[in-house]
């Protein structure tokens, strides 16, 4: 078995070389064409390769467990960029239910609602009931804390959490931490974790073995993507300093409604697509507002992210699947240009 794993790693390294994806390129990897990008991490070596090329191989690897990330459902949004966000959330749930590897749970990285209205949360709850995975972990987005400092959110989704809704849990050897970086935002700033939460995080991670795979998830990216649009978290460096000693760290975010990935040392960052509407690439539009795409293309820019965790091999594969693709299989994605080294600086 170890040979098989080594073969896979070799294959991936080979692909990495063939793809010519250097570190800078990897920073800018974007799956704009609505395809997927798989990456694995083995022993701290990040390896990216085209989903279309290797998905078949990947499907043959048994993961210790799988979970799915969905994000930015914005239930209640009804503008031209997507007049029916409940329907696209439903499509996302159908997609999750059709996954060959049944996910152990779902993580929702925030912006459940558009305006924090009880009726919007009700609709979300109703939709999520249809998901085969019954356990769902949430963190709030700024849209979920609009009217009441997040009281409504905490009552519904944050029972037993600390502060504005942060918490951690363990699952099959991996340690998951849900962070809140949308509360008490300061004028002129970006996302913020705050002193109290940072102290809690430091304490939460203390004493854990460095070989424990760590997954941090929060709404706004915990790495600075585009400060002009507030796409970052002011005090994320502090949080990340606490995870440096761990061999495998994965950071999952939403907020920017598009896939972006970056690897820094042993920390892999990833943002998910929205289930509601796309947003423009950084700096390519006057603002980060909802992006209107032709109706027949909408499902290519919305999607879900599933994560296959191979704890024993400390390897992790993230697959982004647009709603428009039938299943995350090679045939569904063939022909899409995957790794595009676009947008410099």
């Amino acid at each position, binding site marked *: 078995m170890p040979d098989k794993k080594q073969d896979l790693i070799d294959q991936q390294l080979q692909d990495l070389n063939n793809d010519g994806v250097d570190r800078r390129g990897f920073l800018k990897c974007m799956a704009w064409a609505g395809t997927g990008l798989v990456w694995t991490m083995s022993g701290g070596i990040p390896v990216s390769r085209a989903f279309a090329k290797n998905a078949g191989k990947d499907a043959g690897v048994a993961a210790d467990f799988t979970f799915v990330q969905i994000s930015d459902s914005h239930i209640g949004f009804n503008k031209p960029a997507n007049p029916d966000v409940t329907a696209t959330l439903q499509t996302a749930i159908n997609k999750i239910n059709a996954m060959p590897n049944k996910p152990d749970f779902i993580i929702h990285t925030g912006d459940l609602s*558009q305006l924090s209205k009880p009726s919007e949360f009700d609709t979300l709850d109703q939709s999520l009931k249809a998901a085969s995975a019954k356990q769902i972990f949430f963190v709030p987005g*700024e849209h979920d804390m*609009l009217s009441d400092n997040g009281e409504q959110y905490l009552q519904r989704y944050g029972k037993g959490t600390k502060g504005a809704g942060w918490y951690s849990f363990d699952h099959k050897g991996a340690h998951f931490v849900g962070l809140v970086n949308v509360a008490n935002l300061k004028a002129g700033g970006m996302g913020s974790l705050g002193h109290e939460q940072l102290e809690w995080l430091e304490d939460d991670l203390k004493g854990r073995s460095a070989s424990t795979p760590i997954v941090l998830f929060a709404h706004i990216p915990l790495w600075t993507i585009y400060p*002009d649009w507030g796409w970052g978290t002011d005090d994320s460096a502090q949080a990340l300093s606490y995870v440096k000693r761990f061999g495998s760290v994965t950071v999952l975010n939403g907020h920017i409604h598009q896939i972006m990935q970056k690897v820094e040392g042993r920390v892999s960052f990833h943002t998910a697509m929205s289930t509601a509407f796309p947003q423009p690439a950084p700096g390519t539009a006057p603002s980060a507002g909802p992006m209107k795409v032709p109706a027949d293309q909408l499902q290519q820019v919305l999607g879900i992210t599933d994560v296959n965790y191979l704890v024993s091999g400390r390897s992790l594969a993230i697959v982004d699947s647009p709603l428009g693709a039938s299943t995350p299989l090679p045939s569904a994605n063939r022909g899409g240009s995957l790794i595009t080294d676009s947008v410099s600086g």
Partner: protein
Amino acid sequence: MKKNNVWIAIFAMPAIAALLMLVASPSATANDQASTAGTNVVIDNFVFGPQTVTVPVGATVTWTNHDDIPHTVVSTEGVFKSKVRDTDEKFSYTFTKPGTYPYYCSVHPKMTGTVVVK
């Protein structure tokens, strides 16, 4: 058709006049001679415009959100705070004391503006 024309004459003219006043207000601001009739700030593309407005004591400033995304208008120093304003919703505040009032959108804190009351 005639009815429509009359309607336009009666109702649209004041609106057009109001628009002209709006257009004129930035120059009035520049001269520190803003009227107390009301000053408008619009939110477009995640920006408060104009970013700084100067008004006399007693003036009411009205913010209107033109984005597809909700925003708020919140005084950095806790003087005023709007509810969340969705598309085309407004928020007004009357400034009764002179001073400089920085504010921001608490949802998108990169959005900032200032009201100067003289």
